[in-house]
């Protein structure tokens, strides 16, 4: 595979960075040159790459790098973080109309992107959500496009509305809506003909469907293998027709799929689903952060990042350990350790890794920082003044009342937390060995 060598190259550069003590401008440049190559080979648009590299350069050369950490690790971390930032970190759901209105979804895209298949797949998803979808055949141009939708509709157990290929798509759409409201359909999905974004007449056709029918969501269907042109395609569709979301198809191939990043960067529109195969069930929720690492194409480098992060945590843990020994552990430290814990995947998984904890201690701890309670605790600490956080002894009843109000919680809960905090502190003194041990998994002072 063409990409392997690049991955190795990038690894090599990062290794060199790791070997050095401090990061110079040249180091950052050299590393980012390889990142740039990797992204371009993944078909991320050149302009997007350029912007990305600039952002990372700025960050890498900033004070962040000087935090006493291995500078190489910092660059890796920033690259991955920025990529995930660009891609977005949350999944986005299909939007339905409210108040008993019929949800209308219009599919759009270039020829051969996979609209007709995706339309049928989407109908299946919608059906699973307990809705009654109707498919509408608005591709009157491609030979046998209507038949294709009909066959797929039948397989999905979803009705297909068609007026043949002699009527205008906007008229078909209008009639379909009448049919849908008469027959109790609550979601209507319009399959449209593939078109080039430079084809004015065909683009106007989409607009006229939109003018005729109140479209809830227009979805752009894009082939994951699209090259540099993805930017022109998606921005033109967005400008001329207006898109609300994107479905990426053919992600079951081995493309790195840089188009996804380009589209997100240029239109800002969320990617809803990914087509993962030819079967009508092969439509999956889209996970932006996974896409980010696929585009970077270096699982091995990413595991380096994780290691780097673990080491960063360890640094913090060491500081924490020192504080505990001196018994000046305060609420600020508590916040920090809570952050670390979130990263580690919650309390229960961490407790399981702690040797030498008996079951009564365990339940005590679990009670104190049950995963669900973490948010409350965070709210409590954030409602404290800086002085209070540094000095738990300051907390008298009137301060606690203020804190409870600020956190939107009952004062009893604040009391309980403060008490448990004192207990944890005591417990930590009894288990000094838990702190700062190798592996970095046993550093939580709860």
């Amino acid at each position, binding site marked *: 595979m063409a990409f392997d060598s690049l991955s190795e190259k990038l690894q090599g550069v990062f290794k060199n960075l790791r070997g050095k003590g401090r990061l110079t401008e040249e180091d950052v440049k050299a590393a980012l040159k390889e990142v740039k190559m990797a992204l371009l080979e993944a078909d991320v648009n050149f302009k997007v790459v350029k912007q990305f590299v600039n952002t990372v350069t700025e960050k890498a050369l900033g004070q962040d790098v000087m935090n006493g950490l291995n500078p190489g690790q910092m660059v890796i971390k920033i690259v991955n973080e920025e990529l995930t930032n660009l891609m977005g970190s949350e999944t986005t759901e299909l939007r339905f109309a409210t108040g008993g209105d019929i949800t209308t979804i219009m599919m759009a895209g270039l020829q*051969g992107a*996979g609209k007709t298949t995706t339309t049928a797949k989407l109908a299946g998803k919608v059906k699973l959500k307990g809705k009654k979808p109707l498919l509408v055949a608005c591709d009157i141009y491609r030979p*046998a*496009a209507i038949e294709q939708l009909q*066959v*797929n509709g039948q397989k999905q157990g979803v009705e297909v509305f068609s007026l043949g290929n002699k009527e205008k798509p906007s008229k078909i759409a209008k009639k379909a809506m009448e049919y849908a409201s008469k027959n109790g359909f609550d979601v209507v999905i319009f399959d449209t003909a593939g078109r*080039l974004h430079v084809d004015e007449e065909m683009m106007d056709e989409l607009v006229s469907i939109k003018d005729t029918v109140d479209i809830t969501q227009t979805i752009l269907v894009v082939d994951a293998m*699209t090259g540099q042109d993805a930017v022109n395609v998606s921005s033109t569709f967005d400008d001329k027709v207006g898109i609300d979301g994107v479905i990426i198809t053919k992600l*079951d191939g*081995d493309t790195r799929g840089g188009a996804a990043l380009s589209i997100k960067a240029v239109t800002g529109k969320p990617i809803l689903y990914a087509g993962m195969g030819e079967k009508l069930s092969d439509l999956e929720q889209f996970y932006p952060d996974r896409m980010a690492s696929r585009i970077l194409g270096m699982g091995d480098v990413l595991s380096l990042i994780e290691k780097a992060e673990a080491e960063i945590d360890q640094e913090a843990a060491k500081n924490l350990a020192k504080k505990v020994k001196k018994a000046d552990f305060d609420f600020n430290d508590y916040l920090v350790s809570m952050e670390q814990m979130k990263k580690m995947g919650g309390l229960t998984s961490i407790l399981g890794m702690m040797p030498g904890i008996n079951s009564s201690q365990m339940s005590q701890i679990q009670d104190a920082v049950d995963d669900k309670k973490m948010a409350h605790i965070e709210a409590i600490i954030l409602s404290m003044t800086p002085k209070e956080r540094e000095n738990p002894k300051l907390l008298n009843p009137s301060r606690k009342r203020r804190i409870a109000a600020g956190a939107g919680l009952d004062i009893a809960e604040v009391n309980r937390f403060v008490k448990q905090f004192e207990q944890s502190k005591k417990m930590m003194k009894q288990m000094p060995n838990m702190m700062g041990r190798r592996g970095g998994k046993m550093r939580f002072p709860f």
Partner: protein
Amino acid sequence: MAEKESFWKRLLNGLRKTRDNFMKSLEYIFNGFTNIDDDFYEELEEVLIMGDIGVRTTERILDELKENVKEEKIKEPAECKQFLIDSIKRQMDVGDTAYDFENKKSVVLVVGVNGVGKTTTIGKLADKLRCEGKKVMVAGADTFRAAASEQLKEWANRAKVDFIGGPEGSDPAAVVYDAIVSCKAKNTDILLVDTAGRLHNKKNLMMELQKINNTIKKEYPEAFLETLVVLDGTTGQNALVQAKEFSEVTDISGIVVTKLDGTAKGGIAIAIQGELGLPVKYIGVGETKEDLEKFDSNEFVDALFYTGE
């Protein structure tokens, strides 16, 4: 000559959008810069990569240019233009492209990933060959995709050629077998075989292709076998991987690049010939039956750099 002229016109027209952007940027670089410096090279790199030519081919072209600038002591950016054109042409040189199958008893097997334009290309090609006086048959060996057979049948009607197919879900190799028998009986000149779109990383589907390939070789050894991989012109660097993977299970003799009527620059044609040495034989520049052209890399590059109207 008249034919030649019209081809030029069509090519220029099909590539108009391609050329406009590409050209504008290149003109800006060649005439806007006063010095040949790093910025100049970087801008050039951007234009080439934005054309989907790919990082490697671009690097190679730029290295060659840099060397030449040094050797010939070139000072003016404008002087680089002709060198760049020649360099790209050199990259694309794969010798003379053979269209032997057109004049023989032959089978043309058309393969590619989903939605690239296989069926449409077959329709166009069938029409073209029939117009040249050949007796043509198309076989629908895409028994997988819904209504694929109907689609090809419609194209057979448009192109006025014979059609043979099989029911959805049937063995594609069996369809090919039937077609071969029918071709022999009817003394057909050229059999065009449409196959289901398949991603090149799906092993079982690639094996199926191999089986079709073997059926043709076994049942119709006297026929000349031409295998064309269809690539979508808007595809990025994955097109290279596709061509490579398909060549592992079939004997690829040529490439068809489709959808060059959009804004995609079709630079992938340069990368394919430059990196894989496979000849691009046809390009698709639209959806009607006339929109298929034989590809000539020199003309393609000239058209890319053509300024006058």
